[in-house]
């Protein structure tokens, strides 16, 4: 082995590194570095030409400085010069510098690409590998453009050295990940797949990463890899530990390759061919058997490598989800690991079991480990392991063990790490609701939750308990009794006061018969908490008080006195003051009948998805809570129970849709315009007619308590899409950038780009006013079946948009299969207190995933004829609604995303186009013909594609464009 820092070791570099290490302070280090940078700069600029060695040394110093975390803004040119040196070490340092410090300076990229090109064609394997490493390290689009065509050839050429093949495979993988549209495997596909059969294990190891990635994107084209992978795997699994020589790692034959083979198979369903499937099942059984054999070495590397394969095999078994026998064996194996002394194995077993819990075959088997998992939650010393245990408990929960699991999670909450409390609270709340058989248990659980971890109980959780209590009359009395008891505690959480205030205000009468909880006792209890609470809670309590006046006339005098006190009626907070004034007035002026109508019991809430579940989904990302999705029915039954006045409530809630109040208490200081008053409002206006301007009514009707609709929830629903949203969508069929929407407050701009079946859209929200928007929130949803057709991901935007400012949001779109509807974009914010709620259609249309296809006339007509079945064609004849200018038409057709084919149609007036729509599931070829008739000002548009829905949709979209 060569000694380190050999003859050519750069002494100057070593001295410099020592200097830096000897620096006593950050300042000293910066000073030393600046000195060195000045020195290098002068050397590079100096008249004397530097020799290769000096250049290499200085470039290497620059690299070192950069890796220390300092900026480097020169030296790139010198590094590029090194690339063309004929000395290996100089070239090598040049490449390293380029790999680490890429600069998108186009002039430089051209020079770099030139040097790479020379090395690739040098036929010197060492140089070729250096060049390939550089491409793989940089992976830029420019490099993909220059080399994506060349590398597949190097990869499959018969005379390429093995080491070069390995580099070429992974280099291509990197380019494919960065620029999938530029890497076209086409004719190479089959030869690349056959690399799985290569004699050299290293070549197989490298190539399989490429094949796995390509297979996951184009499963059909690569499906022959399945049988090759199975036979390769089978050979490895059955080989003795010494057979594979240096590819055996601590007595485990080819662990990396085995894992990758098992991973590749997870891109596909179980093999259809019985023989292949049998062989694979045999492999999986062997792997499970080996886990039971005594270890061949005590080294952790041995067991890690062996178990890596085992876990990957279990992943495959779970992926197939069709072999009950294997699933149960996998579960038993993981059960053993749950008690293993290696923390890593316990962690992975908990994680892996989480997915097993959702399979019908193994759910019961997973449940048998409940005690071990609960124990892990209590005793594991590492929070990340405890987190896994909590996840698993959540996943294995069902009706049979819900009470136990919820109890354990509650008791864990008392000592849980702060970082995971909020999530735990949400999970407990969801499980309690989902598996509630009797609602007193549910109410107890949530109140316990507030008691134990009140700070982590988000609004959604306590809103939800109120919704459920309101909707279930069989639990209202119990709830009132329980909150009354809970409020007796000397210190109780503010969230408890909120729930208590709300529930006693509604249902306090149900427990008022008992002298221990007589109306006045209830009131005094609530009011004893008043002064310790924040403004929103106080506002809620004031509403509870006015409800008390209605429920219990005997409390009227006491409450009026409280309302009349200076601390209420002259409160510096406008909202509290307004409530006090209005409630006082209301209670003294209105007749009992009017009071009873205004302060009527809340009607049931309309059935909707649990907001808690929505929140957990948001927290964990989609997929993480899939377990609950099957359960919509149970929840419906739980929550839609009460049927009193349901229709009226919905009608009222519709009437008040534009009414603001996104939070329960609607703490707004400004009054909404009277036009938004809900149905009950007119009544209120009457009541107050002598009291003055209509503004007074507002304070009441934006209060969740008083308006007869449940506004909290109703007004949070996204508005229906604007009537003009289809038109706005059509504007973007043939273009990707522009202004999507504009009103007096807000402008929404769009920039988007699409590649293959992927798209990225940038939305720019501009605040046109000089006032900030608060609670600014946008959501993108895929209604109905679109959910399974498009995968849309967004990042949340900042909730504040300053006046005149613009915020940006990125939306990533993946087209899974062809689709018709557009995703909905909902924007909500408060402007000067009023809630704005706008829904638009996001201009994502199927044609965005077109890939243009050039073809000659003969090809075109041949394919046209192949697509002659009636359902493959869609046609429209329509009147021109714009001018019929040739250039405009061409621009629109190109904007559609197809290739405009010249000299194909015999009639030069006509236009024909071709393209392929790229979806994850399949590619749909599409041909188009547009025949303008200038005299009649008419068009005939014909679309043909292999899929009827696609022809129809593209035809519909395009017909709106001319």
């Amino acid at each position, binding site marked *: *082995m*060569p000694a*380190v*820092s050999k*003859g*050519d070791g750069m002494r100057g570099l*070593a001295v410099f590194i020592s200097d830096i*290490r000897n620096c006593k302070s950050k300042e000293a280090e910066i000073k030393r570095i600046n000195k060195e940078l000045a020195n290098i700069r002068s050397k590079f600029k100096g008249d004397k030409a530097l020799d290769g060695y000096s250049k290499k040394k200085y470039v*290497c110093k620059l690299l*070192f400085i950069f*890796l220390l*975390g300092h*900026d480097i803004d020169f030296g790139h040119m010198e590094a590029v010069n090194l690339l063309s040196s004929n*000395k*290996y*070490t100089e070239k*090598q340092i040049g490449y*390293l510098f380029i790999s*680490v410090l890429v600069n998108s300076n186009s002039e430089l990229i051209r020079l770099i690409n030139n040097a790479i090109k020379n090395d690739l064609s040098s036929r010197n394997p*060492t140089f070729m590998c250096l060049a390939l*490493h550089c491409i*793989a*390290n940089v*992976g830029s689009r420019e490099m993909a453009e220059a080399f994506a065509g060349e590398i597949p050839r190097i990869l499959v050429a018969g005379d390429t050295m093995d*080491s070069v093949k*390995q580099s070429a495979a*992974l*280099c291509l993988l990197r380019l494919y*990940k960065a620029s999938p549209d530029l890497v076209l495997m086409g004719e190479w596909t089959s030869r690349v797949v056959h690399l799985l059969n290569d004699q050299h*294990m*290293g070549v197989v*190891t*490298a190539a399989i*990463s490429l094949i796995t990635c390509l297979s996951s994107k184009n499963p059909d084209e690569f499906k022959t890899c399945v049988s090759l992978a199975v036979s390769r795997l089978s050979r490895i699994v059955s080989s003795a530990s010494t057979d594979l020589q*240096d*590819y055996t*790692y601590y007595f485990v034959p080819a*662990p*990396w390759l085995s*894992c*990758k083979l098992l*991973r590749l198979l*997870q891109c596909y369903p179980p093999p259809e061919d019985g023989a292949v499937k049998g062989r694979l099942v045999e492999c999986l059984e062997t792997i499970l058997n080996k886990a039971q054999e005594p270890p061949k070495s005590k080294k952790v590397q041995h067991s*890690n490598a062996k*178990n*890596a394969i085992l*876990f*990957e095999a279990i*992943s495959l078994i779970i992926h197939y989800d069709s072999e009950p026998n294997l699933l149960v064996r996998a579960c038993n194996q993981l059960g053993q690991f749950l008690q293993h002394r290696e*923390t*890593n194995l*316990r*962690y*992975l077993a908990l994680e892996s079991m989480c997915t097993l819990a959702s399979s019908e075959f193994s759910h019961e088997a997973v449940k048998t480990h409940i005690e071990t998992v609960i124990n892990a939650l209590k005793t594991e*010393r*590492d929070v*990340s*392991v405890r*987190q896994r245990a909590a996840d698993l408990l959540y996943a294995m929960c069902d009706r049979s063990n819900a009470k136990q699991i919820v109890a354990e999670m509650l008791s864990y909450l008392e000592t849980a790490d702060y970082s995971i409390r909020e999530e735990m609270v949400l999970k407990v709340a969801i499980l309690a609701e989902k598996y509630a058989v009797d609602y007193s248990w549910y109410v107890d659980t949530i109140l316990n939750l507030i008691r134990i971890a009140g700070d982590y109980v988000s609004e959604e959780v306590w809103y939800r308990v109120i919704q459920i209590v309101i909707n279930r009359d069989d639990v209202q009395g119990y709830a009132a009794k329980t909150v009354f008891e809970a409020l007796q505690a000397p210190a109780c959480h503010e969230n408890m006061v909120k729930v208590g205030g709300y529930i006693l205000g509604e249902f306090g009468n149900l427990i008022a018969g008992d002298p221990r909880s007589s109306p006045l006792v209830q009131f005094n209890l609530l009011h004893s908490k008043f002064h310790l609470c924040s403004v929103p809670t106080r506002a809620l309590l004031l509403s509870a008080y006015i409800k008390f006046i209605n429920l219990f006339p005997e409390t009227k005098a006491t409450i009026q006195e409280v309302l009349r006190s200076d601390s209420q009626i002259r409160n510096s907070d406008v909202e509290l003051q307004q409530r006090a004034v209005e409630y006082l007035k209301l209670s003294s002026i209105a007749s009992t009948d009017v009071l009873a109508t205004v302060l009527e019991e809340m009607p049931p809430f309309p059935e909707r998805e649990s907001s808690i579940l929505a929140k957990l989904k948001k927290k964990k*990302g989609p997929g993480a809570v899939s377990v609950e999705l099957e359960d919509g029915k149970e929840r419906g039954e739980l929550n839609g129970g009460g049927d009193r006045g349901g229709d009226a409530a919905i009608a009222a809630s519709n009437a008040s849709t534009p009414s603001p109040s996104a939070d329960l208490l609607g703490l707004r200081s400004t009054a909404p315009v009277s036009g938004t008053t809900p149905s009950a409002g007119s009544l209120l206006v009457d009541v107050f007619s002598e009291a003055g301007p209509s503004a007074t009514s507002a304070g009441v009707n934006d209060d969740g308590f008083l308006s007869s609709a449940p506004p909290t929830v109703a007004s949070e629903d996204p508005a229906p899409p604007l009537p003009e949203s289809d038109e706005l969508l059509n504007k973007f069929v043939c273009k990707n950038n522009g202004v999507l929407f504009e009103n007096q407050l807000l402008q929404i701009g769009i920039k988007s780009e699409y590649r293959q079946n992927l798209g990225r859209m940038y939305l720019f929200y501009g605040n046109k006013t000089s006032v900030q928007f608060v609670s600014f929130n946008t959501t993108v949803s895929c209604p109905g079946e679109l959910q399974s057709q498009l995968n849309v991901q967004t990042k949340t935007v900042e909730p504040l948009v300053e006046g005149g400012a613009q915020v940006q949001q990125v939306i990533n779109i993946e087209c899974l299969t062809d689709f018709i509807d557009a995703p909905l974009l909902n924007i909500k914010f408060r402007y000067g207190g009023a809630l704005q709620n706008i829904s638009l259609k996001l201009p994502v249309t199927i044609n965005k995933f077109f890939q243009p296809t050039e073809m000659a006339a003969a090809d075109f007509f041949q394919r046209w004829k192949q697509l002659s079945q009636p359902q493959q064609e869609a046609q429209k004849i329509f009147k021109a609604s714009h001018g019929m200018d040739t250039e405009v038409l061409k621009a629109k057709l190109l904007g559609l995303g197809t290739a405009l084919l010249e000299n194909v149609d015999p009639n030069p007036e006509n236009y024909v186009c071709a393209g392929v729509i790229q979806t994850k599931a399949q590619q749909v070829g599409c041909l188009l013909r547009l025949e303008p008739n200038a005299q009649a000002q008419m068009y005939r548009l014909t679309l043909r594609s292999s899929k009827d829905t696609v022809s129809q949709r593209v035809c519909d979209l395009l017909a709106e464009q001319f």
Partner: protein
Amino acid sequence: MQFMLLFSRQGKLRLQKWYVPLSDKERKKISRDLVQTILARKPKMCSFLEWRDLKIVYKRYASLYFCCAVEDQDNELITLEIIHRYVELLDKYFGSVCELDIIFNFEKAYFILDEFLLGGEAQETSKKNVLKAIEQADLLQEVRLLTDP
């Protein structure tokens, strides 16, 4: 694999390899956050953690932490052994490698890594083959040295 970081117990980065395009600013932020997170963990804790939407696999060798970020579907244990194999390669090349070797010969550490992992995937897992490639390169430089004037 998305990236690999080597850092000392004092939190100084000794090697960083990024397999996904990220701006310099993002890289610095990620390294800072992650180094802090890992240094705060106790020795007996498990080698894996969830971090943002990635899985972090790390292991400490003497004064150096080796840390890899892999994606959701990647295998944690085999990643742990990727780290170990890289340590073995460094050890064999430098002969009982220590942190100083990596500081003073950082370029070699990068070259060895490139032979072993490329684009974030294992290129060659045979220790012999990786070292042979590096040796050949070293040999190439010695020959040049001899023939140079």
